[in-house]
């Protein structure tokens, strides 16, 4: 009987796939339902500047009731908080928290729960980049990137996901990067940490499929025009211009509202990922070299 069952599954499988593909193509033409963000409590790590700042504003504009910002620089957090409170109707709070520090994350999570309420949308956005080749990198800096970009996301998810599961309502968002799928020299710490984080989110997304109230979204943007990757120069800026952080924020909030699990920004990055999955390594190396990926981190300055 088990064999018949398996055989049945095997026969249905290609039809299942075709059905999913058709459904997804249809979705391109018919606008999807967008869920209401009113009443949501959003927590954004690294919310003081860069994409995080725009995310805070965007969530607030889309109706979020409360926006909580976590970060390490009080000045940036305070400024962003004031801006959000003044320009939108949302209540904005900020707390100092270094996501690399596990105990601090759990402590601050408790503080948030007591002072503000249950977090229903968690945005793992905090990230750093060291930006040197492996042999030039300082060991501690390498590990710092891993702790903030990857392990920090483990801790924040562990802190807030249980409550989301209890309420059967929530969303975990991860601001990842296309570099997790297509690495470049000169950012080995960042590429490794983003790759780990992507796999973590993929595993989490699969795990949460059975709990329909809790969703996941992972955003993979191309080079975004913020302080973090200041100095990085793409070879064909007319073809592949750096993304505007405001656009990244808008598209992220949209993806959360439509429950899209993975989104590439711009969509052309998907073509790159497809190419990568069947071209031999030598071919990819030629393409990378031509696209200027081998020299783009030479002028990297980072946050000054």
């Amino acid at each position, binding site marked *: 009987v088990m*064999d018949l069952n*398996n055989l049945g*599954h095997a026969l249905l*499988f290609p039809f*299942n*796939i075709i059905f*999913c593909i058709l*459904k*997804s193509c249809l979705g391109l033409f018919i606008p999807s339902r967008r869920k209401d963000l009113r009443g949501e409590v959003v927590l954004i790590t690294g919310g003081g500047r860069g994409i995080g700042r725009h995310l805070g504003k965007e969530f607030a504009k889309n109706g979020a009731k409360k926006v909580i910002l976590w970060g390490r620089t009080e000045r940036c957090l305070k400024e962003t908080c004031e801006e959000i409170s003044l320009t939108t109707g949302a209540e904005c709070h900020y707390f100092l928290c270094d996501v690399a520090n596990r105990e601090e994350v759990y402590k601050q999570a408790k503080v948030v729960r007591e002072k503000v309420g249950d977090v229903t949308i968690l945005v793992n956005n905090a990230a750093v980049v060291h930006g040197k*080749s*492996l*042999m030039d990198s300082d*060991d501690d800096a390498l590990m710092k990137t*891993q702790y903030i970009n*990857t*392990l920090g996301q*483990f*801790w924040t*998810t*562990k802190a807030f*996901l249980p409550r989301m*599961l*209890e309420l*059967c309502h929530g969303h975990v968002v991860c601001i990842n990067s296309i570099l997790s799928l297509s*690495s470049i*020299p*000169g*950012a080995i710490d960042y*590429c*490794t*940490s*983003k790759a*780990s984080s*992507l*796999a*973590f989110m993929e*595993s*989490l997304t*699969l*795990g*949460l*499929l*059975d*709990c329909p109230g*809790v969703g996941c979204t992972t955003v993979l943007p191309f080079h975004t025009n913020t302080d973090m990757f200041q100095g990085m120069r793409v070879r064909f800026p007319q073809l592949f211009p750096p993304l505007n952080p405001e656009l990244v924020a808008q598209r992220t909030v949209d993806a959360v509202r439509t429950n899209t699990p993975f989104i590439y920004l711009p969509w052309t990055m998907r073509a790159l*990922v*497809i190419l*990568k*999955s069947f071209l*031999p*390594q*030598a*071919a990819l*190396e*030629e*393409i990378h*070299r*031509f696209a200027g*990926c*081998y020299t783009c981190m030479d002028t990297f300055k980072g946050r000054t």
Partner: protein
Amino acid sequence: MNIVVEFCLVSCKVFWTLVLAGTRWLMRPKEKNVMGQICVITGAGSGLGRDLAKEFARRGATVVLWDINRETNEETAEIVRKIYSELTGSVSGEAGDLPTIQAQAYTYLCDVSKREEVYLTADKVQCEVGNIDILINSAGVVSGHHLLECPDELLERTMMVNCHAHFWTTKAFLPKMLQLNHGHIVTVASSLGLLRTAGVEDYCASKFGAIGFHESLSHELKAIEKDGIKMTLVCAFLVDGHIFNGCKIRKKTSPFFHQLKPEQCVQQVVRAILTDQSMICTPRSMYMASFMKTVLPFEAIVCMYQFLGADKCMYHSKAHQINANNNETELTSVQQARIQQVSLEKKGC
């Protein structure tokens, strides 16, 4: 005008690499000779590490075995020494003027998650053995828990052994390889690094991190044009009898993926390393699965995972568990028993 010319040139080069890849697939390239070369294998005490040690020993390479578990490491060393004596025996049985096998097995106790230990042990290897030719990062652990049930220390440990250890071992041995423009770095990830499954977030994260590291490093080496240093990525799918012993995923897919015996898997892997192949997936159907993953919409990918039985989920039951607030102690004790079983099965780093 220059750009157009360059674009044409690049297109030609890409086409040529495709032709080369096709030829390689048709005409099996010759395996390189590793006799007398020095091969460092982390996690050599068990699993793929031990099998690789045996294979390289059979080809006359000197193997340097690193593991956190002294017993299993010594066991591997014994097996390897037996292979060496068999080899020497067979060689001296033929012509008398053939050189005797000089290879030896060296064992070192090392926790690769600890940076300082790795550097110290690497220095010792440099002094006692010499410049290494092949580095195989095979050490791996899994916590066996879902994210929310996993103690934080175990999460960290999985990341540190499976991913961060690669930083330290590579930083320890790469400078010499760069100097000599000769070497080979092998990263043992697993197919769970390419495909995902629910419930092992830490393992997936760490293995895909290792893949990200490997690719990043390949590009770095290519950018500085150190062609003498080769890199190979190994993605083995839940090989029978190794780290995922008794894993449910394997059972459900067994009718469709012929059970890959460890020997077959290792043979394929060693062939790939010795022919300087940049990536090897076992079984070969993994290539198809990972390609499908990039083109299919998410729902179709989920279908594929469900078909493979790779989407086991406990979150729904977890939510019910908290809401119901009974049966909790029962579940916990069952989970604890499973935890104990898994931790007994996973040995070595």
